[in-house]
Structure formats: structure tokens, C-alpha cells
């Protein structure tokens, strides 16, 4: 996979470099995105960083964030890959509408998503009410609720990415496998999935990163309690109320984790999808 990519990259390069007219706004755009992050680094209380990081509440929030983002990504993979496959490969009436609905959480204010989740999966909700009566199962104020809120907001990232990969994949491999006698499930498992693996990986990483940063839906649906529902973004928000220095430290941790994962995994797994 690597060699042809590099070759095509060389071909893309323009003689004489890019025009200044494009480069100047590009640099300005880059500065706009990166400067706020640098601001965090500059204003960070480096001398007390160590002791602040080791506070139990910080570690608890970080642990919970990593756990819930990973579980949410798992849930999204389990449900999102089949959903993406259906959208890409099955012809059915209203497919455009379904595709639009799937991407709604991308543009919906997360707080609205949280309210919607409460109305459906809350203790008095349409589905939640029944779950509570039948099994004594409630989601608000639980870690499971955090996972659901994060999955709701992050799943579109996975679905879009996987659907795109499926559409770009060459159908002939699947057809060949089918002609050779493989069943549909075998074709999906042995041919389709490996073909779109980079797209799935890219989607999963985006999904994970989005889940890690989720705030609005989480605090609305799952509430805020240290060790149970207080993830890093919630801890940052509440720290800002009284102790901006602590908020900066927490933000730095979140930033470091996100950048590290995005950078480390992008080159490794996502390269082929570009």
C-alpha cells in the first residue's frame, strides 16, 4: 500500500511550489487553529503540574474518560459498521432520508442530543420508562449513560467514514467471492471488511476522539458525579468556575492524550484511506 501512495504524492507536487495567494491564508488558518493550543501550553502552571496531575480526582476523571470513550467506540463499531454497510450496499426507499438522519447528531447541539436521550432513555422516557419498570435499569447518572451519550454524538463519524470506504471499494472482489460460492456473511467477513479496514480504523479513531471530548450530551444525560459520570471535559468545565489553573492542567492532559492518539494512529492505520 505504501509505495504507490508515495509515488502518487510526488506526482501531486506542483512545480515552483504553491502560490502565495493560497499560502498566506493557509498559514493564517493554521495559526488560528494552533495558537489557542499554544496558549494552553504558555499559561500552564508548569511548576505545580505534577502535584495537580496526581490528584485523585484528575486521575479518576481521566480513567473514566478513557474507559467510556473506548466503550462508546466499541458500541459504535458494533452498530455503526452494519449501519454503514446497509447505507452503502442496500437499495431501499428513503435511503437519503436515513443517511441525513444518521448525520444529524453531527450538527445537533450536543445539549439537545442530551435532552433527546433523556426523553427517550431517561427514567420517565419512552424506552427508559419501560426498562426501569421491567428490569430496574436506568441510564441517567450512571457510567452506562455516559457511554450512551458519547456513542450518540460520535457514531456518525464512524458511519460516514466506513460508508465512504465501502463506496470507494471495488465491488469486483465481493462479486468474485460470491461467484466462487461464498455466502453473504462470509463475503462480508472475509472480503468486504478487510477491504475497508483502513476506513473502519479511521472512523473508529475519529469516533474515539470525539467521544473523549464529549461534554454537552454527557452532562445533560448522565449528569456529573466524580468517579461515575464526571469525565475530563466536565471536570475542566467545573474547574474553570473556581480554579482556572486546574482547568488549564486538565485541558492539557486531554489535549496531550488526543494529539498523541490521533498522531500515532493516523500514520499507522489511516494512511491507506487518504
Amino acid at each position, binding site marked *: 500500500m505504501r509505495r504507490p501512495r508515495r509515488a502518487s504524492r510526488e506526482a501531486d507536487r506542483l512545480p515552483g511550489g504553491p502560490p502565495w495567494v493560497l499560502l*498566506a*491564508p493557509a498559514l493564517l488558518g493554521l495559526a488560528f487553529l494552533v495558537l489557542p493550543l499554544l496558549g494552553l501550553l504558555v499559561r500552564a502552571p508548569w511548576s505545580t503540574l505534577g502535584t495537580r496531575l496526581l490528584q485523585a480526582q484528575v486521575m479518576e476523571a481521566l480513567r473514566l474518560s478513557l474507559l467510556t470513550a473506548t466503550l462508546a467506540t466499541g458500541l459504535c463499531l458494533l452498530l455503526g459498521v452494519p449501519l454503514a454497510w446497509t447505507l452503502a450496499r442496500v437499495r431501499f426507499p428513503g435511503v437519503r432520508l436515513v443517511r441525513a438522519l444518521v448525520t444529524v447528531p453531527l450538527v445537533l447541539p450536543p445539549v439537545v442530543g442530551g435532552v433527546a436521550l433523556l426523553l427517550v432513555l431517561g*427514567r420517565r422516557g419512552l424506552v427508559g420508562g419501560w426498562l426501569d419498570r421491567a428490569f430496574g435499569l436506568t441510564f*441517567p447518572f450512571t457510567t452506562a449513560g455516559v457511554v450512551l451519550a458519547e456513542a450518540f454524538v460520535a457514531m456518525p463519524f464512524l458511519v460516514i467514514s466506513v460508508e465512504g470506504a465501502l463506496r470507494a471499494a471495488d465491488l469486483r472482489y465481493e462479486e468474485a467471492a460470491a461467484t466462487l460460492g461464498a455466502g453473504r456473511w462470509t463475503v462480508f467477513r472475509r472480503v468486504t471488511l478487510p477491504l475497508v479496514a483502513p476506513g473502519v480504523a479511521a472512523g473508529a479513531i475519529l469516533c474515539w476522539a470525539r467521544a473523549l471530548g464529549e461534554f454537552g450530551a454527557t452532562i445533560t444525560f448522565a449528569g456529573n*458525579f466524580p468517579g461515575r459520570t464526571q469525565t475530563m471535559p466536565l471536570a475542566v468545565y467545573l474547574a474553570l468556575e473556581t480554579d482556572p489553573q486546574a482547568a488549564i492542567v486538565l485541558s492539557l492532559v486531554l489535549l496531550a492524550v488526543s494529539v498523541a492518539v490521533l498522531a500515532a494512529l493516523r500514520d499507522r492505520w489511516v494512511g491507506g484511506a487518504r
Partner: protein
Amino acid sequence: MKRTAAVAALSLTVLAGCGDVAGEGSSGTGRAGDGATLTVFAAASLTEAFTSLGKTFESAHPGVRVRFQFGGSSTLAQQITQGAPADVFAAASPATMKTVTAAGDASGPPRVFTRNRLVIAVPKGDPGKVAKVGDLGRPGLKVVLCAVQVPCGAAAETALAAAGVKVEPVSREKDVKAVLTKVGLGEADAGLVYRTDVKAAGGRVAGIGFPEAAKAINDYPIVEVARAPHSALAREFIRLVVGEQGRSVLSRAGFEGP
């Protein structure tokens, strides 16, 4: 290279221009009179009362617009110390006001203009069968409180300590309106909110008073922000709030006299 610099400079000018528009556009969008916009930062619990007082102020000052930013007092205080262009700041507690005064961002000493007390809010029908403050400690009861970082959370700690009730909340919400939402939707069986919030919520929640709330009454201070863009208007608005008219609007909303 020269051209880069020129483009960059141009872009920066454009950006700076945008900033100006955002900052002053609201104060001069072709209105009659002097077209000034008075910016008031106020605690979320003051939303209903101050919106009404803002209308009164606007009709008494033709051409002047009052713009409110309602939110958690602590957030607003942080924003002011970070240079937000506010004229007036009304906080839900002296502690949050102190953030602003200590940073030298108040033009004088703040004035306490009203008080608010906590009540127990329960969903319509009181499914958790909460009748008194002691019930809040019952195991299995889902209680939500404000985070201790915000005034309603600090007051809740004080009141519950005074009542000698140990409460293990299921969540510590970011502001009092969030507590009200969770109780209103029936997700929580009870929460501690201000008396004014229950009043503003209409019939969605019921309020249960308790004597220990008197130990945790919140004073609301108001102050003119230092370097206020519209200092004279700021002082007049404060005069309206602390005056007869302000007092009657606030008491109708469920606040108590200073």
C-alpha cells in the same frame, strides 16, 4: 515575501474589523437616540426578574438597549476578569462577586440588592415521597445538587449541614437551572434549588421549604464594572434594581428583600 506580509496584514485588518463589528455593532445599528447598548452580566436565577427590569429601563431610556448575559455567577465572574465588555455585574453570591472585586474589575464596593433561599424541588406528584429535608438522606432516593463550585451548591452544603442530613447525590449539576431540569423531567426525585426557580418553573415542580434554608440565604450583590463602556447608564440601571421598582419585581419573582 512582501506580498505575503501584505496579505497577512490585510487579513488581520479584516479580522480586527470583524472584532469591531461584533463589539460595537449591537450598540450602533442605526437606532434612534444615542444607540448605546448596556451590557449586564447576571446570575441565571435573575433571568426572569432582570429581563422585565431591562424592558422598564429601555422604555425609560429611548434608544438604549439592554443586553443580558445570564449564566452561572462563577462563569460570568471569570469572563469579566478575562476582560469581557460588561457594564454591570449581578452575582448570586458574595463569593463569586469577590472574584471580580479582588481582580480590581469593580468600580466600587458591591451592593447587596436581594436575597434568595433554597427549597427542595420535587417533580409533579412527588414520586419519591419527599416531605421534609430529612427525607433527602433516604437511601435509593435520587437527589441532584449543584456543584459546590457554584453558589447554589455552596448554599446546599451549608443548609444540609445545618439540617444534619447526609445526602449522597447522584449528580452535581453545573448550575441551578440544570438541577431544575433533571427534577422537572422526573429523572431525579428531588433537588435543592432557589425558591425563585420553583416559581419560574410553573407547575412542573413543587417546592418544599425547610427551616434550615434560613442558614444558607444567598446575598445577591450588584456592581458597576470598572472601565464599563457605559458608566453612567450602568449606575442608572443599578439605581433601578435597588430602587422601589426593582424591589417589587424581585419580590414578585420570589426573592426576599436585602
